């Protein structure tokens, strides 16, 4: 298995989409990966049953930051119902390269922050969000 850093990954890393903060977010959540110190914070604005705006900030490796940038594109403007369903497969598909086991935590950091946000906003049950957390 070889992780190659494709151009679109580096593009998301160098030029992250939906980067920054929202003025009045419905919810703001930060998390980090204790092993490598990668950090991601996310703002969601939920209006009606749609996520109408999303912003993130972070620092860390190309995989964690690009994956979060790609994730925000999947979230922006979607219905809450769709956003709640986003999972690891969606991230891996978006990255489009094999991710070595040691780097999975990097790839899924943004996803974890998203689901924490949804729980905090009362849009997702915690036990459902846990399904996206670490597993074997």
């Amino acid at each position, binding site marked *: 298995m070889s992780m190659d850093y494709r151009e679109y990954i*580096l593009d998301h890393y160098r030029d992250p989409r939906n980067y920054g903060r929202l003025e009045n977010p419905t919810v703001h959540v930060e998390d980090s990966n204790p092993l*490598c*110190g990668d950090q991601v914070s996310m703002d969601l604005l939920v209006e009606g049953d749609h996520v109408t705006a999303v912003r993130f900030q972070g620092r*860390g*490796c*190309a*995989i964690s930051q690009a994956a979060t940038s790609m994730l925000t594109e999947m979230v922006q403007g979607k219905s809450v119902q769709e956003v709640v369903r986003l999972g690891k497969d969606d991230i891996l598909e978006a990255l489009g390269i094999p991710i*070595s086991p040691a*780097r999975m935590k990097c790839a899924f950091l943004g996803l974890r922050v998203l689901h924490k946000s949804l729980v905090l906003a009362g849009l997702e049950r915690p036990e459902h969000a846990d399904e996206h957390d670490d597993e074997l």
Partner: protein
Amino acid sequence: MQDVVEVRREPRSVEEIRGDFPILSRQVHGKPLVYLDSAASSQKPLAVIEAMNAYYRSSHANVHRGVYEISEEATEALERARTKVARFINARQSKQVIFTRNTTESINLVAYSWGWANVKAGDLIVLTTMEHHSNLVPWQLLAQRSGARLEFVPLTPEGLLQLDVYARLLEQGPKLVAFTQMSNVLGTINPVKEMIAQAHAAGAVALVDAAQSAPHLPLDVQELDADFVCFSGHKMLGPTGIGVLYGKRELLEAMPPFLGGGDMIRSVSLRSSTWNDLPWKFEAGTPAIAEAVGLGAAVDYLSALGMDWVRQHERSITAYALERLQTVPQLQIYGPLTEELRGGVVSFSLADIHPHDLASILDQEFGVAIRAGHHCAQPLMEHLGLVATARASFYVYTLPEEIDVLVQGLRRALEIFQV
């Protein structure tokens, strides 16, 4: 002088030494393994693997109370390993060598046992900002429970300890000073002998974290006059699961036990017990016998190479690495830039490429194993203004050609990231 006729074996070539390490002939991702992470854990020579294997095949039984042949053999194997380690660090007596699981457990043993008996509210413990978490967190726990204070010796921009601050802290009469002999991040070698002498003059007990130094530098605990010295087997060619606490006898004798259980007692009644002699007072439960045997084989191997040779080899590899790394554009090295002041550990960052991305590229395209992260030294990372660094570290089997592969990989990473 009659020294000229002294029989000296020719130093073995590094290529020949590599032949002793089976793992070094394997490939990763279709490339020869270039193992540059020995500061995290060293690889093992056949001598160690086979010593452990032979022990399990022929002599294993529980130790110390068996009155049959193989139990006596196992006991002898354990105690012989202790003697080898004692000689390796020039301890006065074998009983001053206590087997633990690793450096972390050794330091915790002192923090709990000596710390609880001796450190009171308001007492001062002096550490440095370059400590590994294992020589920081046990003292934080002790300070939190006892009400003791922690103070830290800061670093110069080059990554050396500010010894003038150390001297001033000693004037406050600390109970204990604890510092590393070699930084696992910066590679800095600290002047521990002088620092211990100053600590003693100030009435403090001195603990040396030798996790990085015991594998790489000649270590003489009596010459250092250290009160406690802690190190791990697995960083010095030995197996995981075995570490050492060396202590001065009078200190160890006066300390209460750490863990209670079998082997550490003299006699037990329902409500009280009396303790076994050193070193067993601190070795509750069945010890890691095979691992001790492996560590004994490891120190034999290192002694045969000669620790002066080990240091010399690593100095030249480190000098070469420092020189070659500085040819890579946008590469920043942390810590002293002369090999005199540092061991075989080089931390660096490359442009704005995250160390984890670097490590992945080096692994997958070049078969190079380096470490990336905070190296269990977050306060030091904070001091450097970093979240993480990449770290290459060297040992007896490291070849200059491997540094070349590393440098080639770093240049490739610059290409991939279009820096």
